[in-house]
């Protein structure tokens, strides 16, 4: 089931889902600081990841993303109750991933704020290392 991650010599792609209110700005903060990270990362900007059904994530894996990091706004979330709903949704996605034999570690739900430079970089590093280990 790991077929999607083997893309020849290029490192596996990581999808980063960010929120307008927090983590997208956080990613900009990383840029403003000129902190460097691997280019196999693709940032998708949304009002809130709570909009995605479970199947959206499965579809992303299918299309070739090896890992997905959901950088939510956490407690800074401007939308009422959205974080609770999102984590429940991710929980259900994990069940579906298990059913399909996709390691749940390929999907990570975390919180990144507008100035969380280090958190942003660490999440990418962690996913990167994890995917490398898997490949090895």
């Amino acid at each position, binding site marked *: 089931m790991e077929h999607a991650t083997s893309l020849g010599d290029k490192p596996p792609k990581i999808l980063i889902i960010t929120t307008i209110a927090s983590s997208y700005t956080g990613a900009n903060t990383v840029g403003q600081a000129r902190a*460097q990270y691997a280019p196999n990362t693709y940032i998708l900007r*949304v009002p809130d990841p709570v909009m995605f059904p479970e199947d959206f994530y499965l579809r992303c894996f299918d299309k070739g993303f090896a890992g997905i990091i959901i950088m939510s706004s956490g407690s800074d979330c401007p939308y009422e109750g959205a974080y609770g709903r999102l984590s429940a949704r991710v929980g259900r996605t994990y069940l579906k991933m298990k059913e399909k034999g996709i390691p749940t570690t390929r999907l990570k739900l975390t919180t990144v704020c507008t100035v969380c430079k280090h958190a942003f970089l660490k999440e990418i590093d962690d996913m990167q290392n994890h995917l490398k280990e898997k490949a090895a």
Partner: protein
Amino acid sequence: MSGAMDEAKVGVYVCHCGGNISDVVDVKAVAAELGKHPQVAISKEFAFMCSDAGQKLVIEDIKSGKINRVVVAACSPALHELTFRKALQRADLNPYLYEHVNIREQVSWVHKGDHDAATRKATSLTRAGVEKILRQDRLESIHVGAAKRVLIVGGGPAGLKAALDSAARGLKVTLVEKSGRLGGHLHEFDTVYPGGQSASELLGKLLSAVSANPAITVVLGAEVKTWDGFVGNFKAVLSTGDAVNAGAVIMATGYRHTAPSAGEYRFGKDDRVITLPALIEQMKAAPRGPLTRGGRAVRSVAFIHCVGSRQIEGVHAPQEDGKVNDYCSRVCCTAALHTINALKERQSDLAIYDLYRDIRTYGRGHEAIYEQASKNGVLFFRFTEEAQPEIRESSVVVKDVLTWNQEVELPADLVVLVTGVKPGEVAELTAMMKLPTGSDRFLQEAHPKLRPVEVANNGFFLAGACQAPMDLVESAAAAGAAASKVAAVLSKDFITLDPYVARVDAEKCTGCEACLPECAYTGALFMNGSKKAEVNAALCKGCGACVAVCEPRALDLAGWSLDQMEAMVDAMASEVAP
């Protein structure tokens, strides 16, 4: 809107940002690659897309009929998304047929070492932008009516000035003050720096103007108890039971003095040690004659600055929330020196020692106060954060940096701790109103440089020290600035809102009601008479929670549809030729 897809002609513009992007990303290659897309009619690169010339490029291409959708790959959309939406408007194209792709903050600035990979990534992201805009409708802004009333929370000088300024613009004002009287900290002072005006006269002016103004309703001893609504139509119920319907809100919740931590400089243990506000209070209560302490004349006073400000983790005891106040409280240096000069005026033989880290008399007229203190014979000693002054039986010992770290023992009948300021107690209020606060606990402005009195949340504005420490002149300016923004929002008959809300395709809706429990906003999503889901656009916040559970995909978020997101993911996942 149907059929828009097949006629879509996208213009792609890749910005060099004067080398910011083009030094890393091969912008020509990105433009060339995008030019191969069957629905991209024009693909160009340009030195500064945000410049007038760059915008003109887009406008001319639209006007000549070559394109009807625009993608600009440049800096962060936070900077220029609006710039280009407005450019589209000037070219008579729906401003939402625009997609801004970030290839600077999220590509060229973070992948400096790998030009090929950065170029490939920029290409993928720009292609994702094209796919998104191909699936975009002509959205229209939402107009909501506005209640021509502003709710002001806090009745200190900032709140009072904001109330007067708003009323003078034809708005009704409800001014809510937690305590039993208006005026806030202005009551504490005898005179204010730098002009030396009488605080009670200034306050009197504000209070009589407020009480004479029929447009201002003052509610004392009251707090906001419940909160609901949105810009143009906020609904508050106060602890008094009064209901307020306001179009906008000005937060003027002010500051509190910091208290020295237990035992800091023997505060609370040694009755010679008091705070600056306590000294000011004592001087105001007994406005003439020499200073006394415990019935005895005071002949020497030592002031110690930065108590509760510029704190360092590990050196200073943390505040209640476990964090130290690492910020400068801005007002204390000048306030202390202003007080020192007043002391010297009434008791010229008083020995005054000023122990400081940096003297920050930055404002107009402040330096003259510092100079006057020097002329008055005040002796200054500079200490470092590592070697704080020590309070002894009848003296203060300071390692004076100015005299090459000599230990100096200074007699002190009185020790005045120049305490700092922290924000008013607003945790409950900010939680209820969902207002952001910074790590310093002050209310967080929308942009620390450009938008100091605005909040990211629509319809909220900040006046005075609730945002950051500031003196009276600065608070007055902030209050006036907040009133200016309110006047702009409420001067029109309608408030214009972003169109990014949920919408329903009634044909697809099966009436299953799965979406209803997902919506957190009362009245925003409901079943209409024909058993179909319906959205109240003014109440919907556009979180998209309902979208995820709609199996027939009848619900979608305007501007952020699932189709668009999937198409973007596909574009990002697909490989770009090296």
